[in-house]
Structure formats: structure tokens, C-alpha cells
């Protein structure tokens, strides 16, 4: 029995403590050093940016840090609600972008004429940065909420669309030749050949898009006053010179961005299992 256990490392509840320690130690040291240098720079007044300790020393920020769920109505809400509001917008627009992107990508990938007609336009549009869409969508849609949703959508849709189209175009001749010789029906071709073959490409697009849409929501909200959301929260804190609140918001944004990417990675691994 003991021979089947790994020879090195202390085991605790099935977790290899030694390995965990080895994996966690370097990043812990790096982060600690980073925070110490930052703290040192702001203590010595080299920069006006408050140090990481201000998250605890600043009265307002401490409240925000320890009470993420408070809700005083209007846009005066805790960090949890601010983040959730932004995430909801991302969820709506990202879902829409995934549906439109995958659908259009497949149409373009399977229809050379459509591809010829639309490729240049798409290649041009996808280079427009998220922030540049903000005034355009505000002008076009007139209201903050739909404008924010549109900015995320238009940012997220291109990588999904383009990767899907490439994935469909890159279906190996081998598979298509088999499909031709067994004269597979359109429906079976779609589900048994086209979709699985293009899936790795589609997921690449989806992962790029989730990161981009999280970037875009911040850009979109920053300039849209009067809405609950982490982007506008940052802008308002900055306007009022509550810089340590901005730092706190950045921590939230970074963590959510990381979680979103990890979630997509996990989802991809689940769906592509065994391929």
C-alpha cells in the first residue's frame, strides 16, 4: 500500500504538502516583495499613490473592504454589488456575442462568397479598440445601459466570429472526403464533423473574448455616469480623489478577470475531454 504512494512529499488529506509548498512559495515571495516595494515608495512620498496598507488605514476604503454587501440605495453599494452589476452586463453581452459570433462564423466559414464579401469589413472592425466604441454606441443608442451592453458585445464578437470561421475553413480534407463518400446528411455533418472539428478554434475565440469583454466593461462604464458597476465606481472614486478605493476596485477586477479565464479553461477541458 505504502509503496503505491509517491515516495517524496508529505501527504495530508490526499494533498501533497511538499509539492503545494513548492508551487506556492515563489509567487508568495514575489507578491510580498512587490507589495513591500510599493508600500515603501508611497511611504517615502516618491509617488502620491497610496500604498497597499491604505486599504486598511483609510476609513472609507476599510468599510468597502469589510462590507462588500452593503446597499444604501442608488449607486452607493458595496463592492460585491458593483462587481455583480458589471458581471451581469458581461454575461448578457458575452452570451449574445457567442451566439452571433459562432453563428456568423460558421456561415462565413462554409460560404466562400460570404467570406469574400465580409472578411475585409470584419478585419477592419475588430481592430477598433473598445473605448472607441463608447461614443459611437452612446450616439447610436442614446442610453447608458444599452450602450454599455453594445460596447461589450461589439468587442467580444470579433475573436469568436473570426476564430470560428477559421476553424470551419480548416476542417481537414480528410474529414470532408469521408463525408462526401458516405454522403452524410447536412445535420449529421454539422454535429458529427463540422462542430467537433472547429471546436478548439471556437474555444480559443471564446477565451480571448471573455477577457476582452471584461476589459470592455470597465471602459464602457467609466464614461457612463450614474450606473452601478465597477467601472463607474472607479471613475467616481478617482473624481473624488479616493485613490485607495481605486486600488481596491483593481483587486476585484483582477480577481474576476482571472476567475473568468480559469472558468473558460475549465469549461473547455470539460467539453473537449477525450478528444
Amino acid at each position, binding site marked *: 500500500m505504502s509503496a503505491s504512494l509517491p515516495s517524496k512529499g508529505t501527504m495530508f488529506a490526499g494533498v501533497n504538502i511538499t509539492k503545494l509548498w513548492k508551487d506556492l512559495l515563489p509567487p508568495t515571495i514575489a507578491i510580498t516583495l512587490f507589495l513591500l516595494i510599493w508600500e515603501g515608495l508611497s511611504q517615502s512620498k516618491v509617488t502620491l499613490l497610496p500604498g497597499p496598507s491604505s486599504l486598511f488605514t483609510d476609513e472609507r476604503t476599510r468599510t468597502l473592504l469589510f462590507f462588500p454587501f452593503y446597499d444604501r440605495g442608488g449607486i452607493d453599494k458595496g463592492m460585491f454589488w458593483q462587481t455583480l452589476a458589471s458581471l451581469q452586463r458581461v454575461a448578457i453581452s458575452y452570451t449574445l456575442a457567442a451566439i452571433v459570433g459562432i453563428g456568423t462564423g460558421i456561415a462565413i466559414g462554409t460560404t466562400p462568397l460570404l467570406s469574400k464579401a465580409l472578411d475585409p469589413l470584419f478585419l477592419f472592425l475588430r481592430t477598433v479598440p473598445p473605448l472607441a466604441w463608447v461614443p459611437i454606441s452612446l450616439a447610436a443608442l442614446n442610453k447608458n445601459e444599452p450602450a454599455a451592453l453594445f460596447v461589450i458585445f461589439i468587442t467580444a464578437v470579433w475573436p469568436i466570429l473570426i476564430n470560428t470561421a477559421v476553424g470551419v475553413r480548416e476542417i481537414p480534407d*480528410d474529414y470532408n*472526403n469521408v463525408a462526401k463518400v*458516405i*454522403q452524410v446528411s447536412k445535420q449529421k455533418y454539422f454535429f458529427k*464533423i463540422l462542430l467537433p472539428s472547429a471546436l478548439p478554434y471556437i474555444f480559443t475565440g471564446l477565451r480571448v473574448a471573455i477577457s476582452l469583454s471584461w476589459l470592455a466593461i470597465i471602459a464602457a462604464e467609466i464614461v457612463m455616469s450614474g450606473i452601478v458597476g465597477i467601472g463607474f465606481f472607479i471613475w467616481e472614486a478617482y473624481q473624488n480623489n479616493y485613490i485607495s478605493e481605486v486600488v481596491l476596485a483593481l483587486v476585484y477586477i483582477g480577481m474576476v478577470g482571472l476567475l473568468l479565464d480559469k472558468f473558460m479553461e475549465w469549461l473547455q477541458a470539460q467539453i473537449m475531454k477525450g478528444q
Partner: protein
Amino acid sequence: MVATQTKPLPTTSSRSTTPLIEIDNVTKIYPSTAGDNVVIKDISLEIHAGEFVCVIGHSGCGKSTMLNTVSGFAVPDKGEVRKNGQKVTGPGPDRMTVFQSYSLMPWLSAYENVYLALDSVHPTKSKADKDHIVREHLTMVGLGEAMEKKPPQLSGGMRQRVAIARAFCLYPEILILDEPFGALDAITKEEMQEEVANIVANHDATVLMVTHDVDECLFLADRLVMMTNGPGATIGEILEIPFPRPRDRSQIMEDPRYYDLRNRALDFLYGGLEIE
């Protein structure tokens, strides 16, 4: 001593029935930057039901191109291919092909790969029937235990076995094999040659196969078609392989005609340069 009767260009086999496949004066040209590339020129060949025809020739001479005109993936620029008197216009399961690269879907198990083909060709057959046929054919090629495995988990030989099971389970009127054992080691290759010989006998199948292995031809084929070098490749000579079936490898190798045929094929291919 030499008992084989081989006429120089017998494009019709000795059987009297109408041919299953007629390759009638087929020329295939691929345009290239350096002008038109006439790959095969004025090729005529008849294949009768139940025949096993092997094609050999130097690499790049146009063997695959000729096969593709039969399978329907390539359209002749001159002449035509007919099956039962009907012009061949495109690929179809009646001329099922085993591709050199196996062409299995890596996301489908061995079973699902075969089932997809059968289900697509016979959508009205009952599920139980289809299940039975798929299992039967995978077992026939020795994959009874590996049906649920996906191609990445299978060896090259096993993948080719799946492709062969997929092809045979459709009971095609003619089975087209393009260098099916080219990438396999010698032992696996011999095993698979025997398996194929057995299934062919079992199914009464008609086969058109490209290979570069003369011994393989002599073991499997009724006729051996030798193609001249391209460009403008054509049929140089056809050898009848007279050994009775079922064939036993060591037994046919003791037959004096074996070495006569083998030498003629090697002579044709290498101009007698190859010395054993």
C-alpha cells in the same frame, strides 16, 4: 516452366460477364504554373465483380489519380468511368474508399466512426441491425475489445483496421484502397493482408487497390496492373495472378510461378536493377 499466360495488354479480363467498372480512355490533367500536367493519359481498364485488382507504379506516376477517377473525387478531362454502364459523376458509398491517412474522426470512438458511416448510408436500417453490423465488422478486424477507444488511443495498425471495418460494413460494390498498409510495420502489414483477404472472400468483394509492395499484390490480387512512369502515365502491363484461393503465403511462395511473376513486376518497375 513458366505457366502463366499473360498477354501484353489484356484490358479486359477473361470473364465473360459485363464489367462492373469500366475506365474508358481516361485522361486527367492538372493545371500547374509550368503548364498543364497530364498525369494519366488514355487509361482503359475493366474490372469485373469479384475481382481483386492491384495497381503498382512509381511514386507520383498517377496511381491515386486513377483511383480518384473511380471513386469520383477526380473528374476525368477526357474519357469517362462507368459503373454498371452508368457514368461516375462523384463520390458515393457504392465505391467506398479507404484513404491512406485513415481519415477517422478523432472525437468519435472506433465504434462511432464505423456507425456514422453505416448510419449515413443506411438510415432506415434498425438501430439493432446497425449495432450488430458495426460490432461484427470491428470484431472481424480484431477490434472487438477496442471499440470504445478513440483513434488517438489506437496504434496506426488499429486505426487502419477501423477504416477497413468502416469500408467493408457498407458492402460497397467496389472497395477502393490507396496504399492502405504503406505506413505499417512488416508484421502488422502481413496480419492485415490476411484479414483483408478473409473479409474479401467472405463478402465476395470487388477491390481496386494501390500498393508499392509486389509481394502484397501476389498474395492478394487476381490481376496486377503496372503503370508506366508519368507524366502521361498509362498501363504498361497487366499480370494475371493464377494462384488458387484461399491462398497460403508460404505455399504460393513455393510455386515456381511466384518468382517468375515477381521478377516480371520488379523488372517492369526497376528495369531489372533490383537484385535480391
